[in-house]
């Protein structure tokens, strides 16, 4: 369970940090906490996994990543852990999840693959297909971004 102070830290850190020399001192001040204590909590929340990472998330289309493929795979149940870990190890894969399959939708492994062009994306996906020997897959490119925001918790 999360402590009250951790909850308050989540509320503060889900907003953008100020771009100043001592951003954590600013946050500590908002929490009426000492900077050292805040840094200690943040480090432990990174270890426990409440905070996945601290830093920048880019608007990736603006840095030249134009092809964003959701690639869904139908992996035999007994191989899903091995294939999931294999795909997760690839730098071009940002997300890799096992999800429930449906009657008319057999895909159970979901990967997001990003590259400058569709052609480049497909080179990566082709390599994934060969390394895993999973041939049942679909590439679902996004054609329009309708919404992209960050969640705000405890508000």
């Amino acid at each position, binding site marked *: 369970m999360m402590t009250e102070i951790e909850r308050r830290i989540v509320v503060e850190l889900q907003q953008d940090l100020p*771009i100043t020399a*001592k951003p954590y001192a600013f946050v500590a001040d908002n929490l009426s906490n000492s900077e050292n204590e805040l840094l200690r909590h943040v480090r432990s929340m*990174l270890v426990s996994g409440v905070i996945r990472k601290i830093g920048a998330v*880019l608007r990736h289309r603006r840095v030249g*990543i134009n092809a964003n493929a959701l690639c869904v795979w139908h992996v035999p149940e007994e191989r899903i852990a091995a294939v999931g870990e294999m795909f997760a190890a690839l730098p071009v894969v940002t997300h890799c*999840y096992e999800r429930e399959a449906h009657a008319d939708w057999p895909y159970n492994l979901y990967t997001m693959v990003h590259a400058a062009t569709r052609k480049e994306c497909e080179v990566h996906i082709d390599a994934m297909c060969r390394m895993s020997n999973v041939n049942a897959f679909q590439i679902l490119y996004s054609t329009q971004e309708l919404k992209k925001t960050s*969640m705000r918790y405890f508000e």
Partner: protein
Amino acid sequence: MGAEAFPTLDEFDRKVLNALQYDFAVSEQPYLDIATKLNSTEDAVLTRVRGLYAKGLIRRLGASIDSRQVGYVCVLVALKVDEEFLLKVAKVVNSFTGVTHNYLREGDYNMWFTAIAPDKESLDNILAIIQATPGVEAVMPLPAKRVFKVSVKFPLAVGCE
């Protein structure tokens, strides 16, 4: 795709953007740490980061929170939507704060979104409202069974000039 003009990035821009993604320290002066690593000064790094932020290259500069770890529930949902109703359905789907990502994709399931809520009941309510929206022909919730990776980082090429 829109013909949006994107800023060109120089070598220092790319190094700074990489450092912000991979090496943002939990320390008193994280920009000083980055400056040291890049053989630069804290002021030069801060000035550059402010510029990159103002140009809209940085979507977030803070913590990425794991929704499951803070006790929230989340789901990926695929919808089959009648083409003529796409905009109206998008408006309903996007109206929920818990819907953080929504994309049109090629294929029979043409709208894909993620929804996050404090508990299962609130999440089910969101899905019920969407299911009842005119134009929505099928709703396929795809809850995660296992997370192998979430790492939204994009390494930018440096040293190739």
